[in-house]
C-alpha cells in the first residue's frame, strides 16, 4: 500500500520497456499487454486518489532517502489529475488497436505501444513529483516519446512536423533545465518545498528573475501558449489519430501543470511580485482564446480544426491561472481535466471517421453522420461540450474562469472568454452541418460502415464522461480548488 505511489509511474514505464520483448514472437500480444498496463495504472491512480480524499496529501521518499536530500514523490490535489490521465490513456490504448493496424507499419507496432506506455508513465510521474530535477526527467520522457509518436505513422508531413516539434520542445526543455540549474545553484536544493523556503532568503535578484522568466517561457512552449504555439497544429494534425488525442488532451497540459507547480516557489520572495507576470499570462491567454478560435474557423481539415481549438483552450486555462483569483485558478485547473476528456473524445471520434472513410476535410466528410451514427453522436457531444453548453464538462471550467474574472474586477477578460465561446460555436456548427445536414459529396460515403466496437466503445465512454463531467463536476472542482489555493494566494 505504501509503495503504491512510485508504482503509478513505474508500472507503465517498465511495461513500456518490456513491450518489444513481449511482442517478440507474437506481435498481436503488444496491444493486450499495453491495455493491461494501462488498466493497472488506472487502478493504482484510483487507489491513490481515494487515499488522498481520505487522508489528505501524502509523500513517498524514493529509495528511502528522506526529503530534502532524496527524491520525493508527492500526491496532492493537483496530482489527482493522474487519475484523469490514466482514464483517458486507457481509452486511447483500447482505441489504438484497429487504428495502429492500419496506420502503423507492422515492424513498428510494438514500439508504438512501447512509446505510448512510456508517455503515460512520464505524465503520471510529472503529476506526482515534488522534485525539480525529477520533474525535468519526467517531462523529457513525455516529450521525447511524443516526438517519436508524431512520426510513428510515417509520411512526409509527419516527419517534418515531428522535427519542428522536436526543436521547439528541446529548446523549451533546455530553458527549464537551465532554470532548475539556477535554482539549485542559488538554494542548494532540488526539493520544491525546500527550494521555496530557501529562496526567500536569496539576495541575488538577477538569477532569480532569469529563472522565473526561463521557466515561464519554457513551460509556455510546452503548453503551446500563443505566440509560442506554431509547432502545435502540424504536429497534432499529422500524427496518427490516437496520438493526436494524447498530445492534445494530455501532453500540452504538461506546460500548464509545470507552471502551476513552479510559480508558487517564488511567492515567498518579498521583493518579487508575480503580478506583472500573471497579468502578461492573462493577456496572452485571452489573445490565444480569440486567435486560436479564429484560426480554427479557417480550417477545412477536421484535425487541424481540433488542433487550433487546443490553442484556444490552452488560452482559457492560462487565462484562469493568470487572473490568480481562487475561482479563476480553480476553473483553469478543472478545464485541464475537462478539456482533456473533451479533446480526447473529439480526436478519437475524428480518428474513427478518418479510419473508416479515409477523408479528413469537412467537404469530403459530408453526410457521414448518417453512416456512422454512434461515432457522430460522440463527436457531437464533444462539440457541444467544448462550446461550453451548460450541462456538459466544458461549461464548468469556463464558468469558474468567468466568475474569477469578475472577482478580479476584470470583466473585459470575461468578454474575451465569451467571444471565444461564440467563435467556437460557429466552427462547430460547421462540423455538425457537414456531418448531418449536407448531402454527401462522395459516393463512397454511402457505403461507409460504423466504426468497429474496439473504437466505438472508448469513444462513447469518453463522450459519456464529457456529459457526466458537467453533471457531477463537484468532485473535480473541490480538488481543483484545493490545488488552486497554493497559487491564488500569491496574487
Amino acid at each position: 500500500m505504501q509503495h503504491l505511489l512510485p508504482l503509478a509511474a513505474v508500472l507503465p514505464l517498465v511495461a513500456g520497456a518490456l513491450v518489444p520483448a513481449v511482442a517478440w514472437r507474437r506481435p498481436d500480444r503488444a496491444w493486450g499487454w499495453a491495455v493491461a498496463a494501462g488498466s493497472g495504472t488506472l487502478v493504482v491512480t484510483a487507489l491513490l486518489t481515494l487515499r488522498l480524499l481520505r487522508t489528505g496529501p501524502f509523500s513517498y521518499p524514493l529509495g528511502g532517502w528522506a526529503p530534502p536530500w532524496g527524491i520525493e514523490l508527492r500526491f496532492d490535489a493537483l496530482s489527482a489529475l493522474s487519475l484523469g490521465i490514466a482514464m483517458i490513456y486507457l481509452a486511447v490504448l483500447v482505441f489504438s488497436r484497429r487504428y495502429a493496424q492500419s496506420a502503423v507499419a507492422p515492424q513498428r507496432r510494438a514500439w508504438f505501444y512501447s512509446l505510448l506506455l512510456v508517455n503515460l508513465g512520464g505524465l503520471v510521474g510529472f503529476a506526482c513529483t515534488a522534485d525539480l530535477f525529477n520533474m525535468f526527467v519526467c517531462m523529457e520522457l513525455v516529450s521525447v516519446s511524443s516526438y517519436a509518436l508524431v512520426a510513428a505513422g510515417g509520411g512526409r508531413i509527419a516527419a517534418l512536423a515531428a522535427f519542428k516539434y522536436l526543436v521547439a520542445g528541446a529548446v523549451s526543455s533546455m530553458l527549464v533545465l537551465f532554470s532548475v540549474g539556477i535554482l539549485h545553484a542559488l538554494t542548494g536544493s532540488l526539493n520544491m518545498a525546500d527550494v521555496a523556503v530557501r529562496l526567500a532568503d536569496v539576495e541575488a535578484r538577477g538569477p532569480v528573475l532569469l529563472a522565473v522568466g526561463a521557466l515561464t517561457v519554457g513551460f509556455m512552449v510546452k503548453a503551446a501558449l500563443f505566440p509560442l504555439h506554431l509547432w502545435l497544429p502540424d504536429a497534432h494534425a499529422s500524427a496518427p489519430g490516437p496520438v493526436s488525442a494524447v498530445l492534445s488532451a494530455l501532453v500540452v497540459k504538461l506546460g500548464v501543470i509545470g507552471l502551476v507547480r513552479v510559480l508558487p516557489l517564488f511567492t515567498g520572495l518579498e521583493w518579487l511580485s508575480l503580478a506583472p507576470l500573471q497579468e502578461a499570462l492573462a493577456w496572452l491567454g485571452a489573445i490565444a482564446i480569440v486567435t486560436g478560435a479564429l484560426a480554427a474557423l479557417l480550417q477545412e481539415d477536421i484535425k487541424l480544426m481540433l488542433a487550433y481549438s487546443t490553442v484556444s483552450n490552452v488560452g482559457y486555462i492560462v487565462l484562469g491561472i493568470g487572473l490568480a483569483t481562487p475561482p479563476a485558478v480553480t476553473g483553469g485547473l478543472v478545464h485541464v481535466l475537462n478539456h482533456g476528456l473533451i479533446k480526447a473524445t473529439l480526436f478519437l471520434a475524428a480518428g474513427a471517421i478518418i479510419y473508416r472513410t479515409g477523408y479528413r476535410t469537412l467537404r469530403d466528410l459530408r453526410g457521414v453522420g448518417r453512416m456512422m451514427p454512434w461515432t457522430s453522436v460522440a463527436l457531437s457531444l464533444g462539440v457541444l461540450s467544448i462550446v461550453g453548453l451548460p450541462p456538459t464538462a466544458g461549461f464548468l471550467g469556463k464558468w469558474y474562469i468567468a466568475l474569477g474574472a469578475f472577482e478580479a474586477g476584470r470583466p473585459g477578460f470575461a468578454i474575451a472568454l465569451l467571444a471565444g465561446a461564440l467563435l467556437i460555436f460557429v466552427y462547430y456548427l460547421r462540423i455538425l452541418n457537414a456531418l448531418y445536414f449536407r448531402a454527401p459529396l462522395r459516393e463512397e460515403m454511402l457505403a461507409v460502415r460504423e466504426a468497429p466496437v474496439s473504437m466505438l466503445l472508448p469513444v462513447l465512454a469518453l463522450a459519456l464522461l464529457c456529459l457526466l463531467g458537467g453533471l457531477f463536476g463537484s468532485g473535480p472542482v473541490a480538488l481543483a480548488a484545493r490545488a488552486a489555493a497554493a497559487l491564488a494566494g500569491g496574487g
Partner: protein
Amino acid sequence: MTGSWQNLDYFAFVALFCIGLYVVLAKSNLVKKLLGLNIMETSVFAFIVTSGMVDGGTAPIVGPGVTGPFASPLPHALILTGIVVAVSITALALALIVEIKRQCGTIEADELKGLD
C-alpha cells in the same frame, strides 16, 4: 566576493546558450539546427556542472585522513541524466532528418516550406 569577475563563467554559458538559440532559429539546414540545439545543451550542462564547484574543494571521496571542503557531486549526477536525454533527442532528430531527406529530397527548411 571580489565582484562579478568570479561569475565570468556564468556569463560565458549564457552567451553560449544564446549562440545555440541563434543557430537554431537562423540556420535553414536541419542538421545545423540540430548542432545549435547541441550547443545549447552543452552550455546548460557546463553551467550546472560548474555550479557544483566549491572554492578549494576536492573530489567528494571520503576516506581516512581526507577532510573537506568537497565539491558537490550532485550536479554531475544530474548532468549524466541530462546527457542521456540529449543523446536520445539527437538520435531521434537525426533519424527524422534521414526520413525527411528520403521523403522530400532536401533538408533545407526554406525549400521544405514550399513542399507542404
